[in-house]
């Protein structure tokens, strides 16, 4: 499981945790996150996230 960081605001998407409030169950891989999903903190598009290892 990998963790992804929003390069704009620092929001972290953790695949293991998913984001249930957006309909992304725990374990949802980044590749399976819809293209129109946006950062909940700043609204930046999925394409502007990058991989980070925390």
């Amino acid at each position, binding site marked *: 499981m990998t963790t992804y960081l929003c390069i*704009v*605001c*620092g929001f972290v998407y953790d695949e293991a945790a998913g984001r249930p*409030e957006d309909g992304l169950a725990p374990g949802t891989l980044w590749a399976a996150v819809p293209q129109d999903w946006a950062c*909940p*903190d700043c*609204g*930046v598009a999925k394409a502007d996230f990058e991989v980070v290892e*925390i």
Partner: protein
Amino acid sequence: MTTTSTPLPVIVIGAGLAGWTTVREFRRLDSTTPVLLITADSGDFYAKPTLSNAFAQNRAPAQLVTTAAAKMVETLNITLLAHTHVQAIDATARTVTTAQGVHAYRALVLATGALPIRLPLAGHAAAQVLSVNSLTDFAVFHAALTRMSGADTAHEGGQHPRHIVVMGAGLIGCEFTNDLATVGYRVTVVDPSPRALAALLPEGASAQLQAALSNTGGAAGEARVQWRLGRTVVRVDAAPNANAGQAPYVATLSDGEPLHADLVLSAIGLRADTRLALAAGLDCARGIVVDAQLQTSAHNIYALGDSAQYGDQATGRTLPYVMPIMHAAKALAATLAGQPTEVKFPLMPVAIKTPALPLVVAAPAPGTSGGWIRTNETEPGSEWQWLDGAGVVRGFVLAGAATPRRGKLVPLVTP
């Protein structure tokens, strides 16, 4: 005007999130108009909100740069004047003056950001008080903390616990407090308000946040974070016995209490940096006043981000947060590309990065009648809604396990 072979550029002043995002959005719409970005710093792109939670993530200043300036310049095909101060703006001649020369513009974007508010402090060490509002500031802060961590390791055992005094119990003060306490520092938070985040939260939420932060990181009951509310720091002096392993500073509070401190951090708020705009004769109040298309009082000069005041002189508001910047930059980019576009801000809840008690706050507009009501008490976490006189939901606060309900609350709110 003289005829030139190349079209006049769009000039952007400031390479923070507002400046860079405007350029990036503009390039999506217009790949040919020259863009000149002028910045007093390096121009490296970084996520400013991460400055207040970098310690717990063990990230050094250099690691916070997500895209180096050179890469931004290449990707966006622009000209960057880094480490360059703008000396003057001539709104009539439509020029910007720097040490490099006089630059004519087609349109000018002011993305000059905000400056930390610093209150005058007495004491010989007042100048040693730090503020963190940029990556450069953060590097100074990080170096100061790293030095004392080194000292700590060398003197394990009898060493006093490292103690940071944070001035300000607002958003940034609380975020830094959480970050520092998580990695082991003792923190004392000083604020004239009677409670933490008093401007944003209902009393019950402030109480929860203070309790959660007090116990951050340490053993139960250790109270790693202490609160000195209803008070201010009035002076900062060098401690008399600093060489004997004691903390180097003494911060004296308004009630006379001395706090020995290894470092004093001022986080009492930001004010828009309107210096250039004022000097150019633009209308400014709490920020550079802009209309719905983000144009200032001068034709073809625009402003956005922490430096801007959205709305008129009297009732306009500053919105020093990430999400408003993204919305404003998209609208402004369209306007600059020839499609005049008004910025429309949706409800923009702010996530406060206090992992001890995560918070999502959608504050009601200033001046909204009504008050906070505790709601959905049987659900996990804590929830408050701001109800106006007619019972309409105008804002909300979600704390702890309630934060995932953000998506359910947003549609209920009439901004």
